[in-house]
């Protein structure tokens, strides 16, 4: 683990991108590293517990990560987080289309040596 002064904490969207899909009351969110060298950090830090905490208000009954090392990506599957899904939810966004942006705000600790690989407008947490 890097010493505190040799790393910075950024929102996950600087290291990865993703998209939400829905089927019934289940949401899946892809998390795709912008660069292969960032992928191990994501696997280490964006674990099921961190994701479950982020979505606690939606009361997931299960949170599962599927790792896809060839794609430098993981697929997060959240059960029962859509208030019944597109037919039943009262949410304006009954599909949960926006939820990737909730996940991509999780903090990620990145060693300074990898900071040049981060994308997007500079933003640290």
């Amino acid at each position, binding site marked *: 683990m890097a010493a505190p002064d040799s790393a910075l904490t950024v929102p996950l*969207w600087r290291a990865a*991108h*993703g*998209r939400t*899909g*829905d*089927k*019934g009351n*289940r949401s*899946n969110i*892809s998390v*795709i590293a*912008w660069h292969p060298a960032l992928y191990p950090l994501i696997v280490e830090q964006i674990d099921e517990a961190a994701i479950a905490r982020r979505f606690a*208000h*939606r*009361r997931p009954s299960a949170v599962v990560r*599927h790792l*896809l090392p*060839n*794609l430098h*990506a993981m*697929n997060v*599957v959240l059960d029962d987080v859509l*208030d019944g899904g*597109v*037919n*039943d*939810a*009262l*949410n*304006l*966004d009954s599909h949960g289309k*926006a*939820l990737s942006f*909730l996940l991509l705000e999780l903090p990620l600790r990145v060693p300074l040596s990898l900071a040049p690989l981060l*994308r*997007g*407008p500079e933003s640290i947490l």
Partner: protein
Amino acid sequence: MPISSLILRVGCAAGFSGDRTDAAPPVVDALVAAGGPAVLIFETLAERTLALAHLAKRHDPSTGYEPLLEPMLAPVLAKCLRHGVRIVSNFGAANPRGAALRIRALALAQGLAPPRIAVIAGDDVSGPAHRAALHERLGAALDARPIVSANAYLGAEPIAQALKAGAQIVVGGRIADPSLTVGPALAHFGWAADAWDRIGRATMAGHLLECGTQVSGGYYADPGLKDVPGMAHLGYPIAEIDEQGDCTITKPAGSGGRVDEHTVKEQLLYEVHDPAAYLTPDVVADIGAAQVEPVGDDRVRLTGVRGHPRTGTLKVNVCFESGWLAEGEISYAGARAEARARLAADVLRERLRGVGALRADLIGVASVFGDDAGHWLAGVPAGDARDVRLRVALRHAERAAAEQLAREVTALYCCGPAGGGGVRTALRPTLGTLSCLLPREQVPTHVEMFD
């Protein structure tokens, strides 16, 4: 054999009902310019779309197919028929035969010879023949509800059968989205029924195509982070599929959008759960070892997909009438706008207590990430937002009860906090869905040719 026929090109000109209707011409132009065997697909069905089509057909038996069928197809029908670009779609929805008749009439109106149209039937399992089987699986949940539709997801085989029989246009109802691509690949390459790896690869090619521009720059842009050029004129995708089923995704030259490894990865994982087991009527596709690799400008190759034997069942969705959704909105702006909107929400909660669980959103403060029970909103500290739209919603089985929400929101004009404006209310009948699996042999399909 000329090199070009070793590649089958499949272009997709619609990813859902309501997609852009000017999508097809650039795709067809690109397919024709490339030469070689080519197919144009339109994917226009979702669970809700199909149920709505059944409701439309109830009112008028000649309808029930994709309402935008004509604007989608009219600009390219003649060119496709002239150049041998076959058309495959599930835009038949609740009435594939009706869609076929409409297409035939469209061709005649354009002075074309009547095309050979194949209609795929068998997906509708709402009739008495399947009632016992559905009841066995869904039980009492089925009895209590007014059924709108029950459709099985059909696979690629009837499409392949229709194309081999010479169909120029194949019209189906609830055909699984990726099967629209697998069917033409089966017919073109003549794969064995158990060529699971190849079928799995073609399935993922179809998966990449099935949402239209979602693989070519649509639904991707995030300014400053994920920029996409030419979004007002996105190019719809084309898959170049080889004999092994591997594919290269691209888009028409000169069109807007982008195809790169990132746009392709986002769509590859879209609506996937276990990446090693993506279930379709045709195969269990496995992208656990898939590779995505840029091979040129706006060209990305997908390899490494595997396939496992298909399951013995087909998924069935049963849609039923589930009651009413009532929504209302009112805006507050200027000093203390958020406080006034929060007060209005409190007033509505009290006025509608006993009618049903009320969801309240403060648009401009917190309205989307939150849950229906309000845990999220309760955790958002009161702030000083100066442009807030209150939105409330509830469901009820009875129309009269749901109507109370509209009256209470409207009453805020006089009885609510100061300066509320722009009331809008809506009341809509809602549909629910139940799903189950039926053994394949209980869902016979057949292909009917219209010459």
